[in-house]
């Protein structure tokens, strides 16, 4: 096989690494860069930093809840912790890390030299980054005139009228609003860039139906950003007008409606879940086939299911509001919409299963995380069906069951796939392999910690424990469960630190990766690792979905089979 394969370096004659430069020069280089790869890496680095901060907040929350009637943190501090944890994880970890991988991978996978609008790309990154810094600045500057509260404490969905000046004096809520507004502008900018890049910058031969599935999923995700993040931006503008200009959008004293905010927030909030999970699916679509050594099963069905999820996800938002009193007819509609979205999601799981079927599965760390993702996403989907049956949700909504359910999605599915993506693309990004040995420890410790925490977290919800309480009574039968949940959090922390150590250690000591360590099939593996600023010395031409497969198997190219 190796003999027939033209070394990718033939395609890409790149000068060896540039000589060492001053720290200042390097910094200047990164700050002023418009290179999609550097911006992607900055996105990733920035969200990793926030992942550690958000994870630390989660750890504090779990220490407080480990035993009943605990006074490790004050109620005020606890409320700030869960608000900051949620806001950080969604807006300053989830979104930027996914946009980071998108930024890095999309141009490489479609054979482009950069994004469509490189300067807009840099602007989007810096404005999002500024949003995150602003949010945390609230810990210092959020006191305001009234000295009330520092960091925001209104919860990550900030239900009105708790955010009104009367109930939230001081400036902490303003920091929250501004941070989200800025991050929203950044997200819309990046999404615009990804769409324009995908539609306008593909290399010759890269028809829409030959794009890697990752690119397809990023296209759909980005399209959803326009229709989902914009409503949040609009709602934030309204909230700011309420707080600063004295308008009455969500002012219940003047006839305003608290429910309107809920609608606006969840019109953003639910598609947001899919905005976050589609890139995770995208990673799975690349990693699972490579380590099963098989083409993805049912490419057209995967695309159709993705587009289907994109559309249906816009009509399910009010399943977060079954207890708001919307009436039987609205509850019925949103129950149906929510249940039906499980069909395209199921199609995806079945297609991954069929991709594994008959393959030769290599259990690298990236694949182990992907397998964890498959099981956990299956469970998360099934608990989602339980919650979609609105009467069941009348019991479970706002309880720890819900917290367990969405952490199963966000950690069990999305974070697991992000870890997988790191193990898979780190060699491309740095030129070094991540240590598989440390990686296996990372995987197993994290897996055990994850299941200790989030499996057992479902049960207190069934036993009547609501979310967002800073303490609970000893006689409710929740204490043992909470102790188990908290102990899992400690294991997850250890595993995450191990992962960070692996990232740093491997950068200096990891095995040299070469251009194509996984024997993969998409275009990014045809350049050297890390790729040069211009990506491809000459623009590639493709004739199938797996250009490198065609190159490695000239006798049996993919283009013979694709429809």
């Amino acid at each position, binding site marked *: 096989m190796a003999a027939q394969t033209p070394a990718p370096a033939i395609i890409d004659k790149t000068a060896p690494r540039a000589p060492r430069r001053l720290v200042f020069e390097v910094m200047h280089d990164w700050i002023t860069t418009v290179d999609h790869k550097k911006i992607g890496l900055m996105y990733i680095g920035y969200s990793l930093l926030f992942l550690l901060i958000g994870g630390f907040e989660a750890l504090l929350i779990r220490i407080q809840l480990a035993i009943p009637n605990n006074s490790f943190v004050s109620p005020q501090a606890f409320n700030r912790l869960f608000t900051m944890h949620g806001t950080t994880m969604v807006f300053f970890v989830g979104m930027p890390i996914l946009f980071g991988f998108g930024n890095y991978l999309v141009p490489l996978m479609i054979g482009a030299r950069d994004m469509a609008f490189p300067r807009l790309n840099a602007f989007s990154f810096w404005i999002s980054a500024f949003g995150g810094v602003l949010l945390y600045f609230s810990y210092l500057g959020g006191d305001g005139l009234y000295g009330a509260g520092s960091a925001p404490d209104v919860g990550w969905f900030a239900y009105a009228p708790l955010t009104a000046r009367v109930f939230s004096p001081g400036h902490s809520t303003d920091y929250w609003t501004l941070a989200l507004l800025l991050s929203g502008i950044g997200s819309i900018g990046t999404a615009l860039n990804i769409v324009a890049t995908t539609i306008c910058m593909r290399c010759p031969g890269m028809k829409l139906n030959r794009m890697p599935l990752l690119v397809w999923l990023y296209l759909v995700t980005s399209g959803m950003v326009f229709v989902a993040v914009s409503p949040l931006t609009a709602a934030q503008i309204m909230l700011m007008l309420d707080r600063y200009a004295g308008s009455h959008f969500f002012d219940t004293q003047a006839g305003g409606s608290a429910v309107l905010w809920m609608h606006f927030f969840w019109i953003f909030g639910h598609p947001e879940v899919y905005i976050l999970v589609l890139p995770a699916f995208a990673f799975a679509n690349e990693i699972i086939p490579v380590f099963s050594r098989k083409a993805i*099963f049912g490419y057209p069905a995967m695309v159709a299911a993705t587009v289907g999820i994109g559309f249906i996800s816009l009509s399910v938002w009010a399943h977060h509001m079954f207890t708001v009193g919307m009436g039987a007819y609205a509850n019925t509609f949103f129950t149906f919409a929510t249940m039906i979205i499980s069909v395209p999601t199921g199609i995806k799981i079945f297609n991954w299963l069929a991709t*594994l079927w008959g393959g030769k599965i290599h259990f690298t760390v990236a694949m182990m995380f992907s397998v964890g993702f498959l099981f956990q996403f299956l469970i998360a989907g099934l608990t989602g069906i339980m919650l979609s049956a609105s009467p069941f949700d009348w019991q479970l909504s706002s309880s720890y069951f819900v917290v367990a359910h969405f952490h199963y999605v966000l950690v069990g599915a999305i974070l697991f796939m992000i870890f997988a993506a790191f193990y898979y693309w780190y060699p491309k990004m740095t030129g070094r392999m991540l240590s598989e040995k440390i990686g296996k420890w990372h995987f197993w410790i994290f897996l055990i910690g994850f299941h200790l925490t989030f499996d057992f977290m479902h049960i207190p919800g069934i036993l009547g424990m609501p979310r967002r309480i800073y303490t609970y009574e000893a006689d409710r039968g929740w204490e043992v469960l909470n102790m188990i949940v908290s102990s899992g959090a400690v294991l997850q922390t250890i595993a995450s630190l191990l992962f960070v150590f692996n990232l740093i250690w491997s950068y200096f000591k990891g095995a040299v990766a070469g251009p194509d360590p996984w024997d993969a099939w998409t275009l990014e593996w045809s350049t050297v690792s890390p790729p040069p600023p211009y990506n491809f010395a000459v623009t590639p031409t493709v004739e199938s979905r797996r250009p490198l497969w065609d190159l490695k198997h000239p006798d049996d190219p993919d283009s013979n089979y694709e429809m």
Partner: protein
Amino acid sequence: MTIIRVWASVVGRPFQFVLGNNSTSIFAPAGTPAHAIFGLSMLVLGIVCSIFVVVAGLLIFALLRYRFRASDSNSEQEPAQIYGSNQIELSWTVIPVLIVVVLFLATTRVIFSTEKAGKSKQKIDVMVIGHQYWWEYRYPKLGIVTANELHVPVSDSSNPTPTYLTMSSADTDHSFWIPRLAGKMDLIPNKTNVMWIDPEQAGLYLGQCAQYCGTQHAKMLLRVYADTPTEFAAWVARQQKVAVEDPSATAGEAVFQHNACISCHTVSGTVATGRFGPDLTHLASRDTIASGAVPNTRENIRAFVDNPAHFKPGVLMPPMHLSDHDLDLVTAYLTSLK
């Protein structure tokens, strides 16, 4: 519906055995809405568990059967490439759609049977008003105003006496959740929601606010007392009276009335008519104070009046800064309000 009930009694048994012994378990239903939800829950749980077993089983099989073995004779070769199959895609689209339809129909029945239930003639009406960290209950037909401890009659299935709760909020959003009686319903300012409960056994049902409402959300506890008809009638009669005048507590009453207490609290039959805090007319008849946070004892009342934030940090009642002497007098007055 009958099928669901039979199914629930079979499938629900193990769940109830493990999780049903708890005072706030949703798997220990004790009222019609909670029973209906429990039945549906068991149907949904049964279906999703079966799906899990099938799909996870296939996944495990595939992972074990098709793992790469270096010892295989053809380990160097790539496996056969399969690109897809429209028939298979169609089958795993249609089967989930059918399952969804079944689930949806069952769910719809429970939604309508609970939300559109015909009103019973013999019913109790209660207005529930959420306040930051406490509950206000008003019985408009009975002329009772009370706080934090809701008394309702037990509802006999042959002669049902359900309680209809008309809910709103005075400030932020709250949610009323007694897991053993019914699902939760939010209390939202400027909006009126209705739910109903019909406890089938006498006793105390616990719950708590389930929508984050501010600093002290955690200690906004709920207590629903399901009384037998005679107990309930006696309770109503007691609550309808104005506050008892205990001669030994007049000094305390004077302290109460000459401080800021009366601008927030009502004691019926006196000058205290504030609406911001809980009605204290029959405070001593309650089991707990501070919205269920601590038992109603003399020491706790004294400590609470001295510094409410001691039990409930973030509570809206300010510390009253009374002298020890006045504190004792007020405590004596409050404990006299039977």
